[in-house]
């Protein structure tokens, strides 16, 4: 097991290494180069030359790459050239990060808690009304662009009905920030109004974002339960007269959930893509909105750190999923 984890961590290092080369190449491929990006097209030749020198762009490329790597390891990803010009990109990232995590967790919990029971029910009564309705629902869910769903929810529940807030993470200035996770902050400081307020802001974007993992988790659960229900050991368990609950919990679900665990891991990347779009619609102030802003402003240092961290997080989550998988299913343990 330890050997397996070590090997996977080595792979992670490799992936991050290749990614850093790609990012470096990406920065160099920018139209007009970094200098233009930072100074704008109309900068004087003197200031351009000064910045070129300061950034070390006159050095040979391998040397530049090493400098880039050295700085990145120390957490120096340059300063923003966008809305908040001059602020370290890392700082901007860290400020936005909790919002996205909060949103993703809400979406994932929502999706899992709905999709797995529904997937089970659907497989149990396959061909029935619930089954066909859920299948169709999940297919429609795949076809509806997440930003449009976000849009519909916002239009109906926030604009037309006024039940929930239109945008943002909380109503203005009503909470003390401790961790940056607003719901958690409210609980820590016992400001229950703030907890409720932050939670209300999470509902609509959370539902919109949940639509992506929901469809996938539902379908995989359903297919996997169908597979397991057909196995001999389930029939044996039933024949032995074990209670329905025991068969479902110990025999069916335990085995059926294995592929689901992997699928949830694979959803992480999609979740971040979805978060970019959802946060943009709800002006949510997370990494997603930061990313969209950075793209609009061509704020490359901020873009770079987000891409890098997103990729590392994605690889890490998948590593975690594989470890979890090996723990649940001894057969795949290397």
């Amino acid at each position, binding site marked *: 097991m330890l050997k397996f984890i070590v090997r996977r961590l080595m792979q992670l290092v490799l*992936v991050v290494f290749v990614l850093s080369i790609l990012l470096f190449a990406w920065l160099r491929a920018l139209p007009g180069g970094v200098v233009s990006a930072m100074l704008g097209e109309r900068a004087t030749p003197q200031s351009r030359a000064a910045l070129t020198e300061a950034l070390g762009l006159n050095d040979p490329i391998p040397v530049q790459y090493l400098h880039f790597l050295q700085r990145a390891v120390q957490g120096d990803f340059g300063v923003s050239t966008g809305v908040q010009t001059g602020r370290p990109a890392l700082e901007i990232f860290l400020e936005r990060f909790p919002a996205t995590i909060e949103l993703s967790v809400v979406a994932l919990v929502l999706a899992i808690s709905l999709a797995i029971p529904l997937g089970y029910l659907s497989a149990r009564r396959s061909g029935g009304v619930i089954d066909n309705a859920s299948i169709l629902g999940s297919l429609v869910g795949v*076809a*509806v662009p997440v930003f449009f769903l976000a*849009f519909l929810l916002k239009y109906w529940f926030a604009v037309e009905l006024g039940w929930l807030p239109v945008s943002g993470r909380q109503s203005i200035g009503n909470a003390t920030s401790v961790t940056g996770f607003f719901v958690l902050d409210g609980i820590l400081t016992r400001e229950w109004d703030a907890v409720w307020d932050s939670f209300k802001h999470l509902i609509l974007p959370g539902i919109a974002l949940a639509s992506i993992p929901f469809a996938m988790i539902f*379908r995989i659960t359903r297919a996997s339960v169908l*597979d397991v229900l057909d196995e001999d050991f389930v029939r044996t368990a039933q024949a032995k007269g074990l209670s329905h609950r025991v068969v479902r919990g110990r025999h069916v679900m335990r085995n059926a959930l294995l592929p689901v665990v992997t699928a949830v891991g694979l959803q992480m990347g999609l979740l971040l893509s979805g978060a970019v779009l959802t946060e943009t619609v709800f002006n949510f102030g997370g990494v997603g909105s930061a*990313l969209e802003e950075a793209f609009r402003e061509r704020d490359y240092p901020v*873009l770079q750190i987000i891409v890098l961290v997103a990729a590392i997080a994605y690889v890490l989550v998948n590593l975690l999923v594989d470890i979890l998988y090996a723990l649940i299913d001894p057969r795949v343990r290397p």
Partner: protein
Amino acid sequence: MTSSDNGPRRGPGARRKQRIDDLAASGTTTATVDEAGAIDEGAGVSLIASAWHRLRRNPIFLLGLGITVVFVVLATISPLLAPHDPAEWILKDQISQQTNPVPDPQPGHPLGGDPKGRDLLSRLLIGSRQTLMVGVLATLGGLTGGVLLGTIAGAFGGWVDSVVMRVVDVMLSIPSLLLAMSIAVIAAEPSQWTVIIAVGAVQVPIFARLLRGSMLAERSKDHVLAARALGVRRRAIVLRHMLPNSLGPVIVQSTLVLATAIIDAAALSFLGLGNPDDSQPEWGQMLGQAQQYIYDNPHLAFYPAACIIVVALGFTLMGESLREALDPKSRR
């Protein structure tokens, strides 16, 4: 993106029986292909024929096929159908006279106009062409790249496989929209082509992985071993025996990818990374541009969104039932 199937869509009672029948049928078809594959590739037809036999009676597939056919026909003949030029500012006068910047529906303009006074119906109709083009070209691009990488990895194996697959891993480790955005942002001038390239590039690792998987499975099959024992050259083995037999899942995947490609392209347009030139309308672009009018004129967003959803649904339904019919493992 995909790792499982959708299960049955037949009646409840007939399911088990059908499943057994299917399983039996799948056994014979795959066996035919395996045995005959070494002799001639024509045997693949039997698999397709048997799949078609099943698909013909599958209402989900027929619905998907219907939507797709209507969409393709519409895109082809849309210039004949569109009542007006999509770029012509016909209703311009009305914009200044009204407090609402969007012209209402009126005789000759059943859906009204867009904020620039252009006929909305014509734009929707003509928009189908660009949407189809983006989807098909991006998917073809992704398919070509993925098949190339997957073939190289699957054919050579060993360290070549490792290297190619690590590259694919890195591509997969960047969330797809992020990758597409990065590619779109490198281009100095956003255009329809940046969208196509960005959306296509995102699909490359998926196709590569899929093809490599089935190629590796193919390597140890009897017909390949037989060909190798007979001294057939490696290139011929790869191109004539392994590749044709591994393409099935990839082809099916491309139907599904078409749907994602259209949605991804719309997402890029939504984020402002699409084609800024709106004389050639595209649904994603129309949807993106409608955002700022959502409060007073939600219909501007709803029409193109509905079109995208229906088309994406069509491809998805078709792809899912195709996969179910062609892949014996996922069929039940």
